[in-house]
């Protein structure tokens, strides 16, 4: 035995890359069963594109579960909770305010409120952990972040179902307006953070990443309390497209990743000045996670922009119209292209790139929010 294991050069170090485990197969089969059931129930109501998307998302879920195993339990739990909610509704939206579990936990808006509370608590605990060097506080912070992410995913799934309860023609995937995508943003950013937390075995970055999610939470609260943005509106004709289902989530992987990178940039800048340096991960580690986040973000943002162009070609009659949103997407893209060149080709490391990532968040935020608020264009859907 001793000899056998020494016959290769790479003993003792975990195998890298993908390898299939038994639990992966179980998970895969589970997803397959869900897909078949979904197909049986809804297959006839979907067009080819939607069927393809269903198939594609099944594959994506399995791949994601194999790539990052904790995501499997997460998805299964959220799936079950959402399923439970749909059973409790019994096809009547009014039950959201009557049935205990819906009213206080599972109705989409209740889940959103839980998400908000849990993210704020997670932020506080990560900071407590940072301040007191308490591993327990960090651990609780991680748990709260997972729970908040679960609340977000459940809220999305249940909201999707609720939209169909409002009216068969109103129903649509909840990625159609600013309110809905903000929840998506919280979910994606939190999951990405949890991934890096696990991969790099440090919980201390949470104190920096969670505040940006909390900021988003603040926006969500204001947006629903003051503007009643949480109400489900039917889709205007321009948004009635299966492109939306893939374009918007792809974009938000990008936005989430860029935000995360910017927050790590802040941490890196503090460490470079010796602030919190003994409590935070090393300067280089922060830099590396930042790079990884930007790389993922850039890839998905590229995909999202391409999908956007293809959608535009269907909806507006041209793949590129220099609409403000499009143009700002290009600016964001160029910004990170330059960042990546500087790091990868020029070999830059250090504070300039950290600052750049932080300023990149301003550019990204403007593309995401500012364009909607200050500039008008095809994306504002004022008219047809």
């Amino acid at each position, binding site marked *: 035995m001793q000899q056998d294991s020494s016959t290769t050069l790479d003993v003792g170090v975990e195998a890298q890359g993908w390898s299939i485990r038994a639990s992966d197969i179980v998970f895969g089969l589970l997803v397959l069963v869900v897909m078949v059931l979904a197909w049986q129930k809804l297959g006839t109501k979907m067009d080819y594109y939607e069927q393809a998307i269903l198939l594609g998302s099944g594959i994506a879920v399995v791949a994601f579960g194999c790539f990052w195993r904790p995501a499997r339990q997460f998805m299964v739990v959220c799936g079950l909770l959402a399923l439970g909610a749909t059973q409790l509704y019994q096809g009547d939206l009014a039950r959201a305010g009557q049935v205990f579990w819906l*009213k206080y936990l599972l109705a989409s808006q209740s889940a959103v409120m839980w998400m908000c509370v849990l993210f704020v608590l997670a932020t506080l605990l990560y900071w407590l952990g940072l301040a007191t060097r308490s591993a327990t506080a960090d651990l609780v912070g991680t748990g709260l972040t997972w729970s908040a992410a679960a609340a977000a995913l459940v809220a999305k799934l249940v909201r999707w179902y609720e939209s169909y309860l409002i009216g068969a023609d109103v129903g649509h995937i909840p990625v159609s307006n600013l309110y809905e995508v903000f929840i998506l943003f919280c979910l994606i950013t939190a999951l990405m953070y949890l991934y890096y937390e696990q991969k790099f075995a440090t919980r201390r970055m949470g104190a920096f990443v969670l505040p940006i999610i909390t900021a988003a939470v603040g926006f969500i609260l204001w947006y629903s309390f003051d503007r009643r943005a949480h109400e489900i509106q*039917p889709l205007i004709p321009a948004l009635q497209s299966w492109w939306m289902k893939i374009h918007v989530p792809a974009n938000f992987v990008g936005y989430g990743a860029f935000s995360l990178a910017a927050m790590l940039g802040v941490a890196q800048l503090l460490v470079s000045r010796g602030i919190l340096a003994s409590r935070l991960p090393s300067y280089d580690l922060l830099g590396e996670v930042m790079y990884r986040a930007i790389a993922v973000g850039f890839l998905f943002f590229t995909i999202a922009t391409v999908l956007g162009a293809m959608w535009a070609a269907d909806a507006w009659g041209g793949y590129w119209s220099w609409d403000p949103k499009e143009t700002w997407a290009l600016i964001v893209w160029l910004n990170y292209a330059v960042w990546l060149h500087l790091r990868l080709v020029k070999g830059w490391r250090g504070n300039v790139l950290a600052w750049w990532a932080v300023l990149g968040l301003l550019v990204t935020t403007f593309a995401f929010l500012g364009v909607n608020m200050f500039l008008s264009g095809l994306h504002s859907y004022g008219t047809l």
Partner: protein
Amino acid sequence: MRRHSVLRVLYELLSSMRFAISLLVVLAIASIIGTVLKQNEPYSNYVFELGPFWAVFFEILGLYDVYHSTWFLFILGFVVVSTAFCIYRHLPGILRDMRSYRDSASLKSLRAMAHHAEFPVSGAMEPIKARILASLQGSGYQVKVLQREDGLMFAAKRGSKHKLGYLLAHSSIVLCGLGFMLDGNPVLRWQQLFGTKVAETRDLPQSKIPAASRLAPNNLAFRGNVTVPTNAEVDVIFINSGSGYFVQELPFSIKLNKFQVEHYSTGQPKLFASDITVTEKATGKLTKATVSVNHPLVVNGIAIYQASFGDGGSKLELMAWNLFDPAARPHLVNTTSLNSQPYQIGKDKYTLELGEFRPFNIETMDEAKAVNKEGITGILADVRSVKAERRTRNMGPSIQFKLRDTQGQAREFLNYMSPAQLDGRFYLLSGVRTEVAQPFGFVRWPLDESMKIDGFMRLRAVMLDAAAYPEIARRAGVKARAGGAISASSAADFERSVVWVLQRFAEGGFAELDRFLKAKVPEDKRKTVAETYIKILQGAAAEALALADERAELPFRPLDEDRSRFLMDGLVAISASFDYGVPVYLQPVGFEEVKASGLQLTREPGKSLIYLAALMMICGVFCMFYIRESRIWLHLTTERALLAISSNRRNSELDREFEKYRTGLAKVLDAASAQE
């Protein structure tokens, strides 16, 4: 020689990384301008916003159409050229690198690497060699084994596709550039430059547009719009170009059979779709299809999109009420929207320029805060419910038109057909304005108990009819005496006052009374005098209303709450009609809608290039980020082994990999020496 070196320097510059990065930054900044300044607005808007000087200055810089301006296209071109040079410059090296194992690397260079290690070797060589080879190949390395003079060299590489990624992503930019250029129609730009094609700026009927502004059906690339009324057929579209336009002839004609609009129960639009028939000119082939938003139709490589919709010239019936001639009867005007016709009111000549007819006007009501429930539990219940309250209402059909007098002065009107409920009463609304940029000011014509405007018009006729004043005054006097408000002796004075107030009112409404007060009555008395006038006017108006009903042979109705409000509204409306600007109110009474569909047609031959480029970009970026290129050298003699690792990325992963192979190799060598 000198010349050569200049070119060389230029090439070095263009293909340099530094230049590329600067270009990308410049491109990003330049792109911002066009998003901040609204593009392709009418020039007058810019003058209005920026002032005449800056408007001209900005125009010279091409800031009103940044993305088609020469300088912007120049930057884009530079990015493409620079990327192309960059690829050209790196290609030979990359190809060499992808093929090569670098098996001739010197021991010195291996020892100079950051990640290298040396081990003593003893024992049989063959098993060591076999294990090394198996292990490297097992982890995905391609290995070349070379017996060199100084020993045995294992040169291994993995992840060459990383470099392929570079090629894919960067070629994609060049391809994108080509596609974009193609769709920018260089041929037309060339023709415009030489003046063989000139954009038309006049507002001419399509058939009169000269050949220099017409583009043949085989035009390389275009994007233009056309409005097709129901049952009409078009075979040209219009392409905006600077301040003018071109007429693009199509290889087919499009007939609009029907335009459909659907709304959700909440009032938001749900569907816009055009049922069209396309007839290809060359073959006569018919294609019937429904084009809707997100679902274009492609014919002959030309894509047809649903872009907008509107009125296509609807038949209208307008009831014309003369506002100032009490004797004039209302008459019906039959006309068509989007049309213009001469129109005479009494002796005054006007042109009636009809604008758009809208069959419905969905309005969002004021932010319905009222729906919010009170208290914290109420608010919580509110955010818990995802069901939206209905916050829109349909104001019904409307017609917009201008009345232009012989001096060319115009007033614009927006008249609604359906009664609108305001403060619990019903009115017909008529908006009026003198400038296009202004919002409409609305006059409310009150409706009588049978929801008609006739009651008001009868009241107005009597109120403006001087011949009726003595009778009104007499009746008012009788009432006043009966109520004890005046004595018998002052009856004559009272009646004179009534007539006088009625006369003033007929000259200019409340405003005229106010003018008189301001001019003739001392300030401290104005309030009491004004109150007296109003009282007299109200009393007189009540008599006028009764008289109007008598003239129309209607049964007598007492002056109840409802009628009092009607009376007050009537006085306000008569007063407002003096500011109405024209002596006629055109009340929409009937219509036969003809819808029109706005279609956008595009031919974009570069689209497939762009899509290919997009695919290449995604694959390329993926390869560059997620395929790590690494190389391992293992130089083996009977005495020692030299391990070196390099990668295109220096990061913790390389450290880990190095560690893995170092310990692995140590174990293999230990095992070999132990077996010995």
